[in-house]
Structures are given as C-alpha cells and as structure tokens.
C-alpha cells in the first residue's frame, strides 16, 4: 500500500532520508514540529563537530610551551569562532530543538501554534550559521573573541570582513531564536490539554516558557548592538570608537546586557531537562515543584540586573561594582534552591543509574563547581585578580559543558527512544559518559590553577614557566579524551538508529504526556486526550484504569 501523506514522518525514519515518502524534499519543506526539532538537533551536532575541531586545534597549539603550530592570527580566529559557534550554533539550536520537539508533546498538543514560523526559525538559524562560517572563505573569520569587544572589533583593528559576518550572522540567528521564543510562548499559553494549568506544566516546559521571555528581552539588545557595530564598520559611524566620540564601554554594556541573560538562556532549559530526568530515574515525584518553578522566575528576573559583573575591571567605580557584586551573589540563592530540590528528589528514591541519570548526576556536581567559581568572580577583588585568565576559561566550561552540555546529553539519552523508536546503547553510553566526564574534568579543573598562577586567556602560546607546560598538557590530553568520547557518542547514535533495540511507548516508565504518544509519534501526536489532573498525567490514567 502506498503510504499517504499522513504517514510522514514514517516510523523508524528519523534521519533526513530519501527513504521517507517524499524524500529529502519532504524534510526541507516540513512544518512538522517533530521534524523541525530533529533538524535542529542535527544542526547542533554538526556545528558541535565544527566547534569541537576548532577546540582541538587550540588545545594542540597550547599542548606545550612555545609551540608554533597555528600562529597568532589563526589562533584568534579559532577561539573566536569556537566560542561563538558553541554558544550560538550548538547550545542554542540544540536546546531550542529539544523544546521544538517536546514542548507540544508534553502539553498534549499536536503542533506548535505557528508551524510556518517554526520552520522559518530553523532555516534562519541555519542560514546565520553558514554566514558566520562563510567568513573563513571570505578573507578571514572574526577574531575579536565571541564578545567582540570594541574597539578591537572595529575596522581599524580588525581588517578582514570577519566581524561583518559575525554581526550579520548573529543578527540572523538571533531573529531565528526570537521566532522560536514567540512560538513557545504562544503555544504554551494557548494549546495545553484540558486540566493542565500553568501550575501543572512539566518542568521542562515551564522553564522553556520562562526562558522564552528571556530570549524575547535579551536578543533585541544584542541585535541593536550588532547593528551599530555593523554600521560603524560599514558606514563609518562612531558608536564604539572612543577616538572619535564613541564609547567602547557602551558596547560592553549592550553585549553583556544581552550576554549575561544569555548564559541563563542556555542554563534554564537544561535545568528543565534535569527536572524531568531525575524524578523518573529516582522513581519519585519531584521534590518541591513550586519552589523549582518559582525560583526559575526569580533567576530570570535577576539575570537582567547583573550584567556589569562582566565589567568589574572596566573601571565603572566602586559603587557600581558593589551593586552588581551584591546582585550577582543573590542569584546563588534560587540556583541553590534548585540543587537542593534535585538532591531531595533522589533522597530515598530507587535511583536507577542509566546513562541519562549519570549525566544528570555529573551535571549537579560539575555545575555546582562552575557556580562556585562564578560566586568567586562576583567578589570584586578576586575578579580583579583572575579576570581574563584561564580561571575564566575554566569557569565558562564548567557551566557550559558541566552545566548545559551534560543536561543535553541527559536529555538525548532520555528522549532518544521517543524520537527514533529505538534505544541508544547503554553500554556505549556508559563509555561515552565516563570518558567525557574524566576528559572534561582533566581539561578544565587544572585551568583554575593556571588562571590563579596568572596564565592569561586568549594567548596562542606561553613561556615555559614552572607547572605551565604540564598543566596545559594534561588539559590537552583531557580534550582528546572528550573528542574520543564524542566519536563514541556519534557512533552510538548512528548505530542505534539502525540496529538499536526497539523502544516501546514508555520505556522508562515516565509520567509526562510525551510518553503517551507512540515512539516515534505519528504525524498527529495524539488522538483524543482526556483532561489531566496533576503534573504526572500518565500515572493518574493508569490508576484510573485500575479502579
């Protein structure tokens, strides 16, 4: 029987594949939130390889003192593109992709509110990514760091067109993110299944929802700054040029007024994933749903008031510094509350150590470490001592990798059966986990020491001072281990897509609605859904059936 349109996406064909009814064209023209979500995930993985390769090259260059494999220009481009890629083209698309796939499913909806806007968001994001990377072919990639501090990012210090591609590329991906956020907000408000009040949203949905407001507020600020930078560079304006009346500080204000919320934009959906994974693998209800949800709002609000902690060394003066230091410390409170809640959820539970759960546990530990170094930074004198050293590099990576990336891994292992209809191999998963965890901590733990010993970041090489060589070498070996772990992960994905154990509807015995659909869900996610009564709908329905 020739399958009709309603069968697309076909069960068991999660890849953009010519084997689906209408082939690749069907994927390229799709407005189905699940297909778009999958394409977001592939986009993230693709750019992760690009960004990872850039990281490997950097670590190779830094493996030993006074190496000269790359040279300063290439190194500048690499660390700029690495950071920019990881933040805007890996973490953002992957988180948005997971939300695009699962938000409708988790609230019992069959689609997003605006399917075509959804498709536009994806393709615009991809376009921005290609524009950014096209700079390599067009005479040189951006080279002023992922934050592009002025006046370093201005025409008279950065001659290639790299920074123009940076501005345009980020504006374009930013528009994609805003489109996605608009869609999440409207979908969450208008399309929930009967009975699911805002107080019964699955926590992942809740945090994506709050996060969307952050995106809507933060990205316009970045876009405004980027437009000004572009106008400076292309039309000879003076916004960020102190030599002719502009202000380099203003760029920093714009960038970090966006940039600090952005780090929470990357963290909050991760918190959401963890809040789904931990209760399921502990076989316990999440501890303190209300505080977990409420603290999210608190974090979101605070995140807009602390941006100047990135500028303690810029000379804003003591009153300003004190204000922002105090504000930054406050963020520790709601975040701490969350950590306590997660631990309390596991307490006394029947914890099952699946790969997903292992990543969740590693997240709690490593993210806490990153949070602690963050608090250290919020103490102004400490910041003055270690800003722009490897201490910063260690910090970013503890929060981005140990934080967000680990939650993404946890989410992928958790949801893969739903997306593909097959299980990821747990055996390969454990290899991936342990190698990555070890490699990650080897790479970045010692960078705290390097930072305290004064090794500046963004340098392409360093003198042979005591301990520098060996610590950097350990770092490079750790990075290589992460690289191997990633190869295992990718192999696991491709292998399991073909040969993985078939997954049934609800392999983990979870309670949220996405597990009520078939694996993978058919084009229309659900038939009729009965109203939900709590945030653990599947459990209720089972009990109803028994009685």
């Amino acid at each position, binding site marked *: 029987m020739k399958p009709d349109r309603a069968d697309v996406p076909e069960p068991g064909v999660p890849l953009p594949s010519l084997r689906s009814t209408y082939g690749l064209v069907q994927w390229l023209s799709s407005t189905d939130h699940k297909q778009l979500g999958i394409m977001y995930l592939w986009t993230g993985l693709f750019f992760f390889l690009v960004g990872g390769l850039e990281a490997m090259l950097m670590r190779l260059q830094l493996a030993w003192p006074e190496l000269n494999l790359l040279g300063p220009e290439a190194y500048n481009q690499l660390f700029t593109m690495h950071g920019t890629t990881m933040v805007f083209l890996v973490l953002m698309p992957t988180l948005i992709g997971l939300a695009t796939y699962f938000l409708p499913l988790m609230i019992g909806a069959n689609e997003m509110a605006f399917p075509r806007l959804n498709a536009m968001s994806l393709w615009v994001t991809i376009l921005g990514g290609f524009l950014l990377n096209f700079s390599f072919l067009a005479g040189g990639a951006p080279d002023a760091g992922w934050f592009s501090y002025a006046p370093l990012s201005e025409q008279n210090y950065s001659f290639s067109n790299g920074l123009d591609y940076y501005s345009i590329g980020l504006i374009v991906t930013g528009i994609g993110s805003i489109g996605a956020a*608009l869609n999440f907000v409207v979908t969450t408000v208008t399309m929930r299944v009967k009975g699911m009040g805002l107080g019964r949203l699955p926590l992942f949905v809740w945090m994506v929802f709050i996060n969307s407001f952050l995106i*809507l507020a933060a990205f*316009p600020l970045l876009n*405004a700054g980027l*437009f000004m930078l572009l*106008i400076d560079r292309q039309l000879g*304006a003076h916004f960020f040029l102190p030599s002719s009346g502009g202000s380099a500080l203003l760029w920093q204000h714009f960038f970090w007024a966006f940039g600090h919320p952005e780090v929470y934009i990357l963290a909050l959906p991760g918190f959401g994933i963890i809040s789904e994974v931990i209760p399921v693998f502990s076989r316990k209800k999440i501890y303190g749903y209300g505080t977990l949800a409420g603290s999210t709002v608190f974090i979101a609000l605070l995140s807009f008031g602390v941006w100047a902690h990135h500028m303690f060394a810029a000379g804003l003066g003591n009153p300003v510094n004190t204000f922002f230091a105090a504000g930054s410390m406050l963020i520790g409170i709601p975040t701490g509350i969350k950590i306590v809640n997660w631990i309390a959820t596991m307490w006394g539970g029947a914890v099952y150590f699946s790969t997903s759960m292992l990543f969740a546990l590693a997240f709690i530990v490593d993210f806490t470490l990153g949070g602690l170094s963050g608090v250290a930074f919020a103490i102004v004198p400490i910041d003055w001592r270690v800003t722009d050293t490897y201490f910063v590099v260690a910090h970013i990576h503890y929060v981005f990798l140990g934080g967000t990336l680990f939650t993404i891994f946890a989410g992928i292992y958790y949801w893969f059966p739903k997306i593909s209809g097959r299980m990821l191999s747990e055996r390969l998963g454990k290899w991936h986990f342990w190698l990555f965890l070890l490699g990650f901590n080897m790479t970045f733990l010692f960078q705290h020491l390097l930072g305290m010993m004064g090794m500046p970041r963004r340098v392409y090489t360093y003198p042979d001072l005591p301990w520098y060589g060996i610590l950097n070498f350990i770092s490079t070996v750790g990075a290589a281990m992460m690289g191997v772990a990633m190869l295992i992960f990718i192999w696991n994905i491709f292998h399991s897509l073909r040969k993985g154990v078939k997954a049934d509807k609800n392999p983990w015995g979870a309670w949220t609605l996405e597990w009520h659909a078939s694996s993978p869900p058919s084009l229309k996610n659900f038939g009729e859904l009965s109203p939900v009564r709590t945030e653990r709908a599947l459990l209720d329905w089972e009990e109803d059936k028994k009685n």
Partner: protein
Amino acid sequence: MEYRQTRLLMQFFIASEALFFVALIVAYVYFRNLTDDWAESAKYLDIRRTGIFTIFLFSSSGTITVANWALRKQKRGVLVGALVVTIVFGAIFLAGQATEYYMLYERGVKISMNIFGSAFFTLTGFHGFHVFVGLIILSVFLTLVLLGSFKGNGPFSAFLATEWYWHFVDAVWVFVFFFVYLRPLL
C-alpha cells in the same frame, strides 16, 4: 483560538521590537549626555518642519483605526478610502524624512560626521525602515481588497496585527521625536 494566538504573538513581537528601540534610544541619550557635539549639531534639525510630518504620521494611526472599523462593518468603500489615506500619510512622512536626510546631507551632516550623525541617522533610520515595512504590508492589504478578497467576516486577525504594528511604529516616533527634536529645546 487562532485569533487569540495571533493576538498574543503580536503582543510579544511588539514588546520585543520595543526593546530594540529602547536600546537605540538609550544609545542616543547616552551620547547626548557624554559629548558636546550636540549643541552644535542639533541646530541643523528643523523641528517645525518635522513636526508637520509628524502630524501626518499620527493621523494615520486614526485612519487605520477607521479602516479596521470599516472592515468589521463590511463597508468596502470606507475601507478602501481609509487604507489609501493611511498609506498616503505614511508615505508623506517617509518623504519628509527623505528630504530631511537630503538637506542634512547637503550641509555635511552624515552618519560618519560625528557621534551625533551616527546616533541620529541610526535611530531615525530604523524607525523609517519600520514605517516602510508597514507601508508594504498595508499596500498588500489594499491590493487584496481591490482584487476582491474582502471577506470582512469575524475579527480579521491579520489586519488587526497590522494595525497594532502601525500604532506601535507611531508610538515609537513619540519617543524619538521627544528625545531627538524636543529635548534639545527644553
């Protein structure tokens, strides 16, 4: 439901756009207070002339409301008339801005002249661009109406969205006009 969704979408989209303009205005005000290029440059601005064009823009907010009313009451003639007037008023405003740019340019006031030029042209330019986009959307509407795709039944959400957008662009101009043209005189 669809109506409610478009309405929400538009509200949040406009809020997001508003923050974009807040950033541009902040930059403008920040530089105003930072440098003294202004005292000299602001005298190039002709507030009376711009004031007249401003009246056209604000009036178009009224005429688009009339258009929406006509759509709901299914009065085709009024709708076409109100749409045409809205478009013409918007176009007059843009033409005013274009000639203003030209006159400034003649006197050497350019985006690259100094920080005043940069901030002035960027802020007013982005606003003008938004007016331009609005004009395109309105023209599409007018064409559809003239071609006979005039349904007029129920709350026609695409039109309402356009109307909100237009009001928003006008509201932004209130602030731009205040900070750029009025403030220096106060």
